[in-house]
């Protein structure tokens, strides 16, 4: 062939290149279809009903407050008060000395609701008692699986002096044998301030789990607590709690 052949090829290549470039061009951006966004899309979902179920109570009270029960022990010409807390829908735990020598037991919840008493049982190996109720208790806490360690923060919720529901905090400072010989085994010593009437109050950890039951105090303003491990042992033992004789509920 003659010389013009390469030139035609160059032209052809240019044509192809132009066509290729045209085909490689992006299409004109389409206009938005449908309505444009009118409100920010939430990044996380919020279910108020679930929040109420899990974290909030219907009336805004904490679970720690809702589990606490005031115990009135009307003896023969004597009246004393203590505290307790629910461990089941119709079962609560308090101290043995709170329900002993009683002619009449009366329970009331954080909101003043009265709850009838069906039966009471006391433990022989610890200053603990179980009271069965006629009606349902407002809330049931979780029991911790292990005792708190020294230095752990606890919260005590109860009715000191039989008065208003009170929340106090403190730390576990030691384990010791029971100074009152009411309890077989070690008990916890805390610096949480309690008063007469606080007996039977639950001691809660940071997660709101029950880690013990207040049962005594000393002059150094230290409180003594039955550890939750003992509570577990006694609750799992069918023979640990003996029913309070009905005769003891009647004054002569």
């Amino acid at each position, binding site marked *: 062939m*003659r*010389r*013009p052949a390469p*030139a035609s090829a*160059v*032209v052809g290549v*240019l*044509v192809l290149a*132009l066509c290729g*470039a*045209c085909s490689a*061009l992006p299409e*004109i*951006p389409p*206009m*938005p279809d449908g309505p*444009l*966004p*009118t*409100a920010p899309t939430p990044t996380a979902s919020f279910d108020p009903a679930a929040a109420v179920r899990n974290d909030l109570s219907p*009336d*805004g*009270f904490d679970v720690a407050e809702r589990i606490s029960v*005031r115990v*009135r022990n*009307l003896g023969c*010409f004597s*009246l004393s*008060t203590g505290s307790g807390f629910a461990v089941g829908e119709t079962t609560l735990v308090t101290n043995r000395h709170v329900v002993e020598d009683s*002619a*009449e037991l*009366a329970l*009331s*919840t*954080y*909101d*003043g609701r*009265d709850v009838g008493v069906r039966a009471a049982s006391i433990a022989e190996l610890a200053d603990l008692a179980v009271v069965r109720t006629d009606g349902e208790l407002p809330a049931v806490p979780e029991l911790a699986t292990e005792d708190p360690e020294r230095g752990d923060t606890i919260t005590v919720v109860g*009715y000191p002096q*039989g*008065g*208003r*529901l009170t929340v106090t905090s403190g730390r576990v400072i030691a384990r010791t044998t029971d100074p009152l010989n009411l309890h077989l085994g070690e008990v916890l010593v805390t610096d949480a301030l309690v008063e007469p009437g606080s007996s039977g109050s639950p001691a809660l950890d940071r997660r709101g789990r029950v880690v013990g039951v207040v049962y005594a105090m000393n002059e150094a303003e230290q409180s003594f607590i039955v550890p939750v491990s003992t509570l577990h042992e006694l609750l799992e033992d069918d023979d640990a709690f003996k029913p309070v004789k009905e005769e003891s509920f009647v*004054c002569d």
Partner: protein
Amino acid sequence: MGVTSTPTHETDTQDAVVSAQAEKPPRPRTRARHRRWVLLSVLVLLLGGAVAGDAYLWQVSEAWIERDGQWQVHARSLTTSLGETTTELQDTMAELEVVRGQLDQAQTRISDLADEKAQLGDEHAVVRQLAEYQERVQTAATAVVAALDSCIASQQRLIRWYRDTEEPTDEQLVVLAELGESVGAVCTAAQEAKDALAEELDG
């Protein structure tokens, strides 16, 4: 006009020359013309491409301008909506604070009322127990009074019998002795009941 024909022999001569020169490289003049043709073609193609590109970019630009206008309108709408929503949120937050305060007050009130009810319950229980005790004391006192009445009545009957009987027979004396023992028992029981009540009241 008349000088258009070319002698045949000259054409033949030229063809012979061209054919004779075909095997040789093109002459510079022909090559230059060819290069111009190629260059012209390339320029035309480039010009065509540039025109096509301009048209495309023009359309894209127009589309983006139109879209930008829509977005600006929408952005202004969203800004207005955001402002309204922010205001509503602030109002809602303020209301929430008020409600929280009311809830705190309600909780405090509930706790106060629960405490008052518990204290009243304690007082009521004590008063009720005291009332029951007083009722039992009243019942016991009534029984003591009845026993003492019975004792007094028996003693009065015994006194009347002694007064009305001047010379009792032996049988009457036996009955009198039994009656005296009976009266003594009644009065002793009454005395014991009175002592027990007094001790209970003193205790």
